[in-house]
């Protein structure tokens, strides 16, 4: 195995551990009171922020490949994207189960009425479509359409930052930093994106 391949494999394992270990940690942290006496809100924040970070990490891969010239890194995009989706779904589930306690009437009302929730939900639907179509069989069947669909990851990342922004009761600093990072990541792929949308 070449050094580059060893490096890529190590990163692969690293991605899985980085995404999984914080979730395992929760099983200890919640009972231990690490997230406070009422962990619901902290849990929602922890999972939402984790989802957004994983999403941005997945967008970092293409520029990294370009600058480091290690094509094997491309293989990290799939696990990063799927982990982002897992965290986003847990974030959604925490809100459904622990905050709104499965009161479906209220849940439907909140999704329709509150713009930041509607935005988060739309973003989750996009991620769902992307996760579903990352099944190898569907990938092959979709051919060129697959790439077109998966460009949606960029609007999704921007939506994540705005959802974060709108979810805050006051302040804007953190989401602004995330938005800036997202825009830089998009700018790095400007040429590819313009080419794709022009087609």
């Amino acid at each position, binding site marked *: 195995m070449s050094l580059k391949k060893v490096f890529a494999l190590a990163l692969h394992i690293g991605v899985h551990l980085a995404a999984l270990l914080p979730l395992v940690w*929760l*099983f*200890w942290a*919640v*009972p*231990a*009171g690490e*997230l*406070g*006496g*009422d*962990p*619901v*809100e*902290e*849990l929602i*924040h922890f999972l939402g922020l984790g989802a957004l970070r994983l999403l941005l990490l997945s967008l970092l891969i293409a520029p990294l490949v370009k600058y480091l010239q290690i094509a094997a890194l491309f293989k990290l995009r799939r696990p990063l994207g799927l982990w982002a989706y897992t965290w986003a779904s847990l974030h959604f589930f925490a809100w459904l*189960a*622990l*905050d*709104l*306690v499965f*009161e479906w009437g*209220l849940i439907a*009302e*909140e999704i329709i*009425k*509150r*713009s*930041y929730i509607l935005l988060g939900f739309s973003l989750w639907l996009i991620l769902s479509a992307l996760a579903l179509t990352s099944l190898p069989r569907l990938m092959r069947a979709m051919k060129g359409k697959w790439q077109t669909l998966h460009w949606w990851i960029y609007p999704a990342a921007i939506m994540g930052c705005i959802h974060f922004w*709108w*979810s*805050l*009761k*006051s*302040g*804007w*600093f*953190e989401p602004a930093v995330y938005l800036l990072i997202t825009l830089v990541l998009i700018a790095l792929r400007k040429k590819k994106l313009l080419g794709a949308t022009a087609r």
Partner: protein
Amino acid sequence: MLIKAKKNLLESALTPESVYSERRTILKGLGLGSLLLAGPSQAGFFSKEAPVEVPAAAKRHALQYEKTSPASPLVLTPESKILTHNNFYEFGTGKTDPFKNSQGLELEPWTLSVEGEVAKPGKLDVWELINGAQKKGAQLEERIYRMRCVEAWSMVIPWIGIELGQILKQFEPTSKAKYLAFETLYDPEQMPGQQSRRIGGGIDYPYVEGLRMDEAMHPLTILSVGLYGKTLAPQNGAPIRLVVPWKYGFKGIKSIVKIRLVEKMPPTTWNMLAAKEYGFYANVNPAVDHPRWSQGSERVITEGGLFSAKRQKTLPFNGYADEVAGLYSNMNLKQWY
């Protein structure tokens, strides 16, 4: 004054012990036992027990007080949750930040100055009030109140305090006193949120709040100096804070250093930050939603672990309508939210 116990407040949050143990048995049977159920303080991720021990609180000591409210049908929120789930942006915007960052707050001495439209402006030695209240005939009382946060969660807290009206009388408000303007301690060295706008959520400090004179004189309105039989912990607003049980929690300004009696409605922190979301009155009102969430119901923070969450309907004036609705009889509460 007697606080009436009402039928609709009898929402017993208790779950029979047998249900707890049943679930534990099922999970253990699935072999998930060790990972999911074990943990410090015996409570597990899926367990129904309250997870946290009461944190060893800095400098809290036992208080002498009178139990004036009748036996309450309300189920108290466990002390550990009241101590570790707080909004006090001076110590950070996360719910656990106040508990983590406030333990060093210097509480002694503490003076509360009362000024403005009063015949006898002056400074109140808060520790004298706490320690010597009985001598002056101003008795500390326990009041078990519901606390409804504007973020749609609620607790039941056994406060210890004294009616604000009793204290104000000593300073002899003049006829010009129509409103009260309260102010929290401003001390960036002790309060990291006041040093940095990022930590403090972009709020302009000091935190200020206000009440109308009749609201302040209402017997339900207290200045609290303790809870669960002891003096307040810093994260709960030590050594002295406002409690107005029919209003959203942010009206209950913490660690107060100044009360100014004034003629005009004073500015208030959250209203200045987002006037469409937070009004001056901020009476609990299920009919007026926050623009970003419903106020029709609330998540009750009570006994039990992560998966024993419950929601209940929010009551007008947080259930104290019989006592206080009269204060607002001529007002359109949709306009004056």
